[in-house]
Protein backbone atom coordinates (compact mmCIF):
# COMPACT_ATOMS: atom_id res chain seq x y z
CA UNK A 1 0.00 0.00 0.00
CA UNK A 2 1.47 3.36 -0.98
CA UNK A 3 1.35 6.52 1.16
CA UNK A 4 -1.43 8.08 -0.91
CA UNK A 5 -3.81 5.15 -0.34
CA UNK A 6 -2.84 4.84 3.34
CA UNK A 7 -3.41 8.56 4.04
CA UNK A 8 -6.69 8.60 2.09
CA UNK A 9 -7.95 5.64 4.11
CA UNK A 10 -6.97 7.38 7.34
CA UNK A 11 -8.71 10.55 6.10
CA UNK A 12 -11.91 8.59 5.44
CA UNK A 13 -11.62 6.94 8.88
CA UNK A 14 -11.21 10.35 10.59
CA UNK A 15 -14.22 11.73 8.73
CA UNK A 16 -16.32 8.64 9.55
CA UNK A 17 -15.46 8.94 13.26
CA UNK A 18 -16.21 12.68 13.28
CA UNK A 19 -19.49 12.44 11.37
CA UNK A 20 -20.57 9.34 13.29
CA UNK A 21 -19.55 10.78 16.66
CA UNK A 22 -21.32 14.10 16.09
CA UNK A 23 -24.46 12.33 14.78
CA UNK A 24 -24.68 10.05 17.81
CA UNK A 25 -23.84 12.93 20.18
CA UNK A 26 -26.88 14.78 18.77
CA UNK A 27 -29.14 11.71 18.94
CA UNK A 28 -28.17 10.95 22.54
CA UNK A 29 -28.33 14.62 23.59
CA UNK A 30 -31.90 14.81 22.28
CA UNK A 31 -32.83 11.49 23.93
CA UNK A 32 -31.23 12.41 27.28
CA UNK A 33 -32.89 15.84 27.33
CA UNK A 34 -36.29 14.16 27.76
CA UNK A 35 -36.21 14.36 31.59
CA UNK A 36 -34.32 17.71 31.47
CA UNK A 37 -31.37 16.37 33.48
CA UNK A 38 -28.20 14.50 32.56
CA UNK A 39 -27.30 11.67 34.98
CA UNK A 40 -23.82 10.15 35.39
CA UNK A 41 -24.39 7.37 32.82
CA UNK A 42 -25.75 9.82 30.23
CA UNK A 43 -22.83 12.16 30.91
CA UNK A 44 -20.38 9.28 30.31
CA UNK A 45 -22.10 8.33 27.02
CA UNK A 46 -21.83 11.94 25.76
CA UNK A 47 -18.18 12.05 26.89
CA UNK A 48 -17.47 8.94 24.79
CA UNK A 49 -19.09 10.60 21.75
CA UNK A 50 -17.01 13.76 22.28
CA UNK A 51 -13.82 11.67 22.61
CA UNK A 52 -14.64 9.90 19.31
CA UNK A 53 -15.18 13.29 17.61
CA UNK A 54 -11.81 14.52 18.96
CA UNK A 55 -10.01 11.37 17.80
CA UNK A 56 -11.67 11.78 14.38
CA UNK A 57 -10.53 15.41 14.19
CA UNK A 58 -6.93 14.49 15.07
CA UNK A 59 -6.82 11.64 12.49
CA UNK A 60 -8.42 13.91 9.89
CA UNK A 61 -5.88 16.69 10.55
CA UNK A 62 -2.76 14.51 10.42
CA UNK A 63 -3.90 12.49 7.38
CA UNK A 64 -4.96 15.72 5.65
CA UNK A 65 -1.54 17.28 6.27
CA UNK A 66 0.09 14.08 4.97
CA UNK A 67 -1.96 14.34 1.78
CA UNK A 68 -0.92 17.99 1.46
CA UNK A 69 2.76 16.97 1.60
CA UNK A 70 2.11 14.47 -1.22
CA UNK A 71 0.31 17.14 -3.27
CA UNK A 72 3.18 19.52 -2.62
CA UNK A 73 5.68 16.92 -3.86
CA UNK A 74 3.55 16.30 -6.98
CA UNK A 75 3.57 20.10 -7.50
CA UNK A 76 -0.22 20.26 -7.82
CA UNK A 77 0.03 23.96 -6.92
CA UNK A 78 -2.60 26.73 -7.00
CA UNK A 79 -5.17 24.72 -9.00
CA UNK A 80 -5.67 22.49 -5.98
CA UNK A 81 -4.45 24.54 -3.01
CA UNK A 82 -6.31 27.74 -3.95
CA UNK A 83 -9.49 26.04 -5.20
CA UNK A 84 -12.79 27.00 -3.61
CA UNK A 85 -13.37 23.43 -2.47
CA UNK A 86 -9.99 23.16 -0.69
CA UNK A 87 -10.17 26.61 0.96
CA UNK A 88 -13.71 25.84 2.15
CA UNK A 89 -12.53 22.57 3.71
CA UNK A 90 -9.76 24.43 5.57
CA UNK A 91 -12.22 27.08 6.78
CA UNK A 92 -14.69 24.44 7.97
CA UNK A 93 -11.91 22.60 9.83
CA UNK A 94 -11.07 25.85 11.65
CA UNK A 95 -14.76 26.44 12.42
CA UNK A 96 -14.95 22.91 13.87
CA UNK A 97 -12.00 23.57 16.16
CA UNK A 98 -13.15 26.98 17.37
CA UNK A 99 -16.79 25.95 17.87
CA UNK A 100 -15.56 22.98 19.96
CA UNK A 101 -13.56 25.39 22.17
CA UNK A 102 -16.45 27.87 22.42
CA UNK A 103 -18.86 25.07 23.37
CA UNK A 104 -16.44 23.67 25.93
CA UNK A 105 -16.23 27.04 27.68
CA UNK A 106 -19.99 27.70 27.27
CA UNK A 107 -19.22 30.84 25.25
CA UNK A 108 -21.81 29.95 22.62
CA UNK A 109 -25.40 28.76 22.82
CA UNK A 110 -25.13 24.95 22.94
CA UNK A 111 -27.99 24.40 20.46
CA UNK A 112 -26.35 26.75 17.95
CA UNK A 113 -22.90 25.27 18.64
CA UNK A 114 -24.06 21.71 18.10
CA UNK A 115 -25.85 22.70 14.86
CA UNK A 116 -22.67 24.39 13.56
CA UNK A 117 -20.52 21.41 14.61
CA UNK A 118 -22.82 18.80 13.04
CA UNK A 119 -23.27 20.85 9.84
CA UNK A 120 -19.47 21.34 9.64
CA UNK A 121 -18.76 17.61 9.89
CA UNK A 122 -21.35 16.78 7.21
CA UNK A 123 -20.12 19.60 4.95
CA UNK A 124 -16.50 18.42 5.32
CA UNK A 125 -17.64 14.91 4.35
CA UNK A 126 -19.68 16.16 1.36
CA UNK A 127 -16.77 18.34 0.14
CA UNK A 128 -14.42 15.37 0.49
CA UNK A 129 -16.69 13.11 -1.56
CA UNK A 130 -17.78 15.68 -4.18
CA UNK A 131 -14.48 15.88 -6.07
CA UNK A 132 -15.89 17.49 -9.20
CA UNK A 133 -17.41 20.44 -7.32
CA UNK A 134 -16.31 23.57 -9.14
CA UNK A 135 -17.76 26.48 -7.17
CA UNK A 136 -16.09 29.57 -5.75
CA UNK A 137 -15.09 29.76 -2.08
CA UNK A 138 -17.85 32.28 -1.34
CA UNK A 139 -20.52 30.17 -3.04
CA UNK A 140 -19.51 27.10 -1.00
CA UNK A 141 -19.39 29.08 2.25
CA UNK A 142 -22.81 30.61 1.51
CA UNK A 143 -24.11 27.08 0.95
CA UNK A 144 -22.52 26.06 4.25
CA UNK A 145 -24.22 28.99 6.04
CA UNK A 146 -27.60 27.92 4.64
CA UNK A 147 -26.89 24.32 5.67
CA UNK A 148 -26.11 25.41 9.26
CA UNK A 149 -29.51 27.17 9.44
CA UNK A 150 -31.20 24.06 8.01
CA UNK A 151 -29.46 21.75 10.52
CA UNK A 152 -30.34 24.11 13.42
CA UNK A 153 -34.05 24.03 12.57
CA UNK A 154 -33.97 20.30 11.87
CA UNK A 155 -32.45 19.62 15.30
CA UNK A 156 -34.97 21.95 16.96
CA UNK A 157 -37.78 20.08 15.20
CA UNK A 158 -36.31 16.71 16.27
CA UNK A 159 -36.04 17.89 19.92
CA UNK A 160 -39.63 19.14 20.02
CA UNK A 161 -41.02 16.10 18.24
CA UNK A 162 -39.18 13.70 20.58
CA UNK A 163 -40.25 15.60 23.72
CA UNK A 164 -43.88 15.39 22.63
CA UNK A 165 -43.67 11.73 21.62
CA UNK A 166 -44.03 10.10 25.07
Amino acid at each position, binding site marked *: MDWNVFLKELHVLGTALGVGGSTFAEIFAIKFAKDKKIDIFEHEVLKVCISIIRIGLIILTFSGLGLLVLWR*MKLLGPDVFYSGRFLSK*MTILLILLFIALLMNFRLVNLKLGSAVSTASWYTAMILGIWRGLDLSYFAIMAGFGAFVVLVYFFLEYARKTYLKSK
Partner: protein
Amino acid sequence: MNEVNIFFLVAHIFLGTLGIILLTAYLLSIFKKEIDFKWLKINSFLALVSFVASWITGGYYYTNYYGKSVKPVILKGEFAWVHSILTETKEHVFLFLPFLTFAIFAITFFAHSDIGEDKKLTLSIAGLCFTTVSTALAIMLLGIAISGAVGK
Protein backbone atom coordinates in the same frame (compact mmCIF):
# COMPACT_ATOMS: atom_id res chain seq x y z
CA MET B 1 13.19 17.05 -3.19
CA ASN B 2 15.47 14.43 -1.65
CA GLU B 3 14.46 12.11 1.17
CA VAL B 4 16.26 14.10 3.89
CA ASN B 5 14.38 17.27 2.96
CA ILE B 6 11.08 15.35 2.82
CA PHE B 7 11.81 13.98 6.30
CA PHE B 8 12.51 17.46 7.70
CA LEU B 9 9.40 18.92 6.02
CA VAL B 10 7.16 16.14 7.39
CA ALA B 11 8.78 16.40 10.86
CA HIS B 12 8.30 20.20 10.82
CA ILE B 13 4.58 19.83 10.00
CA PHE B 14 3.99 16.89 12.35
CA LEU B 15 5.72 18.49 15.35
CA GLY B 16 4.01 21.86 14.83
CA THR B 17 0.60 20.19 14.62
CA LEU B 18 1.39 18.06 17.68
CA GLY B 19 2.24 21.27 19.59
CA ILE B 20 -1.14 22.75 18.62
CA ILE B 21 -3.00 19.60 19.75
CA LEU B 22 -1.10 19.48 23.06
CA LEU B 23 -1.78 23.14 23.85
CA THR B 24 -5.45 22.74 22.90
CA ALA B 25 -5.63 19.79 25.32
CA TYR B 26 -3.90 21.97 27.96
CA LEU B 27 -6.47 24.74 27.41
CA LEU B 28 -9.33 22.28 27.86
CA SER B 29 -7.69 20.74 30.97
CA ILE B 30 -7.16 23.86 33.11
CA PHE B 31 -10.89 24.48 33.50
CA LYS B 32 -11.68 20.98 34.74
CA LYS B 33 -13.03 20.61 38.29
CA GLU B 34 -10.14 18.33 39.24
CA ILE B 35 -7.01 19.45 37.43
CA ASP B 36 -4.34 16.80 36.82
CA PHE B 37 -1.18 18.86 37.38
CA LYS B 38 1.15 16.02 36.48
CA TRP B 39 -0.54 15.82 33.06
CA LEU B 40 -0.39 19.63 32.69
CA LYS B 41 3.37 19.62 33.37
CA ILE B 42 4.00 16.78 30.90
CA ASN B 43 1.68 18.42 28.35
CA SER B 44 3.33 21.86 28.54
CA PHE B 45 6.81 20.28 28.39
CA LEU B 46 5.91 18.17 25.32
CA ALA B 47 4.32 21.22 23.64
CA LEU B 48 7.54 23.19 24.24
CA VAL B 49 9.68 20.34 22.86
CA SER B 50 7.35 20.00 19.84
CA PHE B 51 7.52 23.69 18.93
CA VAL B 52 11.30 23.92 19.44
CA ALA B 53 11.83 20.76 17.34
CA SER B 54 9.43 22.11 14.68
CA TRP B 55 11.46 25.33 14.73
CA ILE B 56 14.73 23.44 14.15
CA THR B 57 13.37 21.08 11.47
CA GLY B 58 11.64 24.00 9.73
CA GLY B 59 14.89 25.97 9.83
CA TYR B 60 16.78 23.06 8.27
CA TYR B 61 14.16 22.69 5.51
CA TYR B 62 14.20 26.45 4.85
CA THR B 63 17.96 26.82 4.59
CA ASN B 64 18.62 23.57 2.71
CA TYR B 65 15.67 23.41 0.33
CA TYR B 66 13.07 26.19 0.41
CA GLY B 67 15.48 29.10 0.07
CA LYS B 68 17.43 27.49 -2.78
CA SER B 69 14.75 25.63 -4.74
CA VAL B 70 11.26 26.91 -3.86
CA LYS B 71 11.68 30.62 -3.14
CA PRO B 72 13.12 31.49 -6.59
CA VAL B 73 10.28 29.57 -8.32
CA ILE B 74 7.61 31.39 -6.30
CA LEU B 75 9.23 34.78 -6.86
CA LYS B 76 9.26 34.22 -10.64
CA GLY B 77 5.61 33.13 -10.79
CA GLU B 78 2.31 34.98 -10.52
CA PHE B 79 2.15 34.31 -6.76
CA ALA B 80 5.32 36.21 -5.79
CA TRP B 81 3.31 37.99 -3.08
CA VAL B 82 2.93 34.62 -1.35
CA HIS B 83 6.63 34.66 -0.51
CA SER B 84 7.03 38.39 0.08
CA ILE B 85 4.00 38.60 2.39
CA LEU B 86 3.01 35.14 3.67
CA THR B 87 6.45 33.50 4.04
CA GLU B 88 7.97 36.66 5.52
CA THR B 89 5.11 36.87 8.02
CA LYS B 90 5.36 33.16 8.84
CA GLU B 91 9.07 33.13 9.46
CA HIS B 92 8.89 36.12 11.82
CA VAL B 93 5.71 35.32 13.76
CA PHE B 94 6.92 31.72 14.06
CA LEU B 95 9.76 32.95 16.29
CA PHE B 96 7.28 33.79 19.05
CA LEU B 97 5.87 30.28 19.45
CA PRO B 98 8.65 28.58 21.48
CA PHE B 99 8.82 31.60 23.81
CA LEU B 100 5.06 31.74 24.33
CA THR B 101 5.08 27.99 25.00
CA PHE B 102 8.06 28.37 27.34
CA ALA B 103 6.05 30.92 29.36
CA ILE B 104 3.18 28.42 29.66
CA PHE B 105 5.63 25.67 30.64
CA ALA B 106 7.35 27.89 33.27
CA ILE B 107 4.03 29.00 34.81
CA THR B 108 2.84 25.39 34.93
CA PHE B 109 6.02 24.27 36.69
CA PHE B 110 6.43 27.13 39.15
CA ALA B 111 2.87 28.25 39.86
CA HIS B 112 0.89 25.07 39.23
CA SER B 113 -0.70 25.08 42.68
CA ASP B 114 -2.39 28.40 41.86
CA ILE B 115 -3.86 27.24 38.54
CA GLY B 116 -7.55 26.63 39.08
CA GLU B 117 -7.45 28.29 42.53
CA ASP B 118 -6.47 31.77 41.34
CA LYS B 119 -9.12 32.71 38.78
CA LYS B 120 -7.11 35.65 37.41
CA LEU B 121 -4.04 33.47 36.82
CA THR B 122 -6.16 30.70 35.26
CA LEU B 123 -7.83 33.12 32.85
CA SER B 124 -4.47 34.73 32.00
CA ILE B 125 -2.84 31.40 31.23
CA ALA B 126 -5.93 30.38 29.22
CA GLY B 127 -5.60 33.62 27.23
CA LEU B 128 -1.90 32.97 26.64
CA CYS B 129 -2.64 29.40 25.59
CA PHE B 130 -5.44 30.50 23.24
CA THR B 131 -3.17 33.14 21.69
CA THR B 132 -0.42 30.55 21.15
CA VAL B 133 -2.82 28.01 19.61
CA SER B 134 -4.37 30.67 17.33
CA THR B 135 -0.94 31.93 16.25
CA ALA B 136 0.27 28.38 15.56
CA LEU B 137 -2.89 27.62 13.56
CA ALA B 138 -2.42 30.80 11.53
CA ILE B 139 1.19 29.78 10.86
CA MET B 140 0.04 26.31 9.77
CA LEU B 141 -2.45 27.87 7.33
CA LEU B 142 0.29 30.17 5.99
CA GLY B 143 2.47 27.09 5.44
CA ILE B 144 -0.33 25.41 3.47
CA ALA B 145 -0.88 28.56 1.39
CA ILE B 146 2.87 28.79 0.66
CA SER B 147 2.94 25.12 -0.43
CA GLY B 148 0.12 25.91 -2.86
CA ALA B 149 2.11 28.62 -4.61
CA VAL B 150 4.48 26.07 -6.18
CA GLY B 151 2.92 24.48 -9.26
CA LYS B 152 4.16 22.69 -12.36
